[in-house]
């Protein structure tokens, strides 16, 4: 920091009084609506002591919920990853009719309330739904069972990876791929050696966002789950059940697991952003040398 402030700096910045006021306002708002809720999770979780905390986490129902939550993420994320890459390849590397309509349609699940996301699967697979009678005749359970929960999770996390990749790949253009193809590389070689390394940070970021949402989804999953303990409860649903049974410490203990997960996601995200900035800076420096 400079000790003296030049006149031009004074002209294009605010007086210290205003600066302090604005910083103060921002921090007070964030404390009330962000930091205190975060602290409350851990405070409430540990209020009854570590014994209650760990008992809530190693409870068989909680462990089953952890397994189901992980299973949802393990299925939903790769499915949406493949879709995201395919959609971004088509949208970013080619010009075709109806492209902007396609981009808008990819965003649809973001605009749909999670509750409605659950509802549409009830309408499809429920007893009175389109496929309900056929599924019942063949003894296949989708609704109020694991497949329904996975499908609802896939729906709500559908756009995340495509959303990250499309602008990134549009910005990168097609020159590098064209060069590789002209030099004799096959299509897949070009993808693995040129495209994938170029998009890896954006891809990872999309995966992080997708995973966070897949593990944390509540509304959609709640509608299709049927709330069968130890069988169709994900971690967020387990939190709700414990809370509604007034087992507050246990509810917050399970919630604290999800909170730690969210904090890890944020850390990974910051790391990825930092890495991406470094890569871009290195690329700019290299361009400067030539």
């Amino acid at each position, binding site marked *: 920091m400079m000790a003296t402030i030049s006149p031009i700096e004074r002209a294009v910045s605010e007086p210290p009084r205003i600066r302090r006021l604005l910083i103060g306002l921002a921090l007070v708002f964030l404390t009330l609506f*962000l930091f205190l809720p975060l602290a409350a999770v851990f405070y409430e979780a540990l209020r009854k002591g570590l014994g209650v905390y760990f008992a809530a986490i190693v409870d068989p129902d909680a462990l089953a919920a952890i397994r189901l939550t992980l299973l949802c993420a393990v299925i939903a994320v790769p499915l949406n990853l493949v879709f995201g890459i395919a959609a971004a390849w088509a949208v970013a590397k*080619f*010009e*075709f009719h109806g492209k902007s309509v396609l981009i808008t349609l990819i965003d649809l699940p973001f*605009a749909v309330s999670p509750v*409605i996301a659950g509802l549409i699967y009830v*309408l499809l697979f429920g007893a009175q739904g389109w496929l309900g009678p056929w599924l019942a005749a063949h003894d296949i359970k989708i609704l109020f069972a694991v497949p329904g929960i996975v499908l609802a999770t896939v729906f709500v996390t559908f756009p995340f990876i495509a959303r990250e990749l499309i602008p990134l790949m549009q910005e990168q253009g097609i020159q590098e791929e064209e060069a590789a193809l002209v030099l004799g590389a096959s299509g897949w070689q070009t993808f693995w050696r040129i495209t994938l390394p170029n998009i890896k940070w954006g891809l990872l970021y999309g995966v992080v966002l997708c995973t966070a949402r897949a593990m944390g989804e509540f509304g959609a999953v709640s509608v299709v789950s049927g709330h069968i303990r130890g069988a169709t409860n994900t971690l967020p649903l387990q939190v709700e059940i414990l809370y509604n049974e007034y087992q507050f410490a246990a509810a917050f203990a399970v919630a604290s697991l999800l909170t730690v997960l*969210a*904090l890890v996601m944020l850390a990974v995200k910051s790391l990825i952003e930092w890495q991406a900035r470094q890569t871009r800076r290195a690329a700019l420096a290299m361009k400067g040398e030539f």
Partner: protein
Amino acid sequence: MQFRLKQRSVLPGFNLALGYTLLYMGLIVLIPLSAAFIKTTDLSWTEFWAIVTTPRVLASYQLTFGASFIAAMINTSAGLIIAWVLVRYSFPGKRLVDAMVDLPFALPTAVAGIALTALYAGNGWIGGVLALIGIKIAFTPLGVIVALVFISMPFVIRTVQPVLEDLEAEVEEAAACLGATRWQTFRWIIFPALRPALLTGFTLAFARCIGEYGSVIFIAGNLPMVSEITPLLIVTKLEQYDYRGATAIAVVMLVISFMLLLLINLLQWWSRRRHAA
């Protein structure tokens, strides 16, 4: 001119990529969504209209849209200040604050719901203080606003931040050289440049708020006619096996959400065009 689906390109894989995209999108998103619209054709227009305009449903729209509007407004003003502070000033812990702004996107809504309830209930840290001056937040419509402020907080900050970073200092210096006060520069130079981003952020936040369910149901109290949001009403109808009623209300919400999505795309197109010019 001959019609071609796509322009010629040397890159391979267009058919495979687009084909897979359309197939997957059709199976996961479009067919299930169309189920909701087709289900409502079971109802005649008068039946449909009667379901979506009962007093209880109307009260839920009023709460959902009113609280969403207020929450998005609060986040637009607070978001502008927070984005400004994060871009223009330096203070201890700034990078941590910047990273934490995304917490509402990463934190499951159910966790946000119970944490905010614990905090704003009469015996909570904040609720206890407010109770002394006779303000109740949890289990009232105010609680709905608090939950919606939390879950839609990052939108405005994250749309305004990049625009503010790209703003060229020369313009502000020129304004100052020409004798503008700092407030005039902000009002007439900086604010107009931020307006598309602010509007986009507001609309994104509003759209997110009207569909929100997980965080609100814990803090709202869920009294019919008073603190019952529309998504909760859909769930209630589903639990009573009133599939037609639930679907009718859902279709109203879907149509409004789609219009908002179109508006968001238009706004982003507008801000890109301004940005380019």
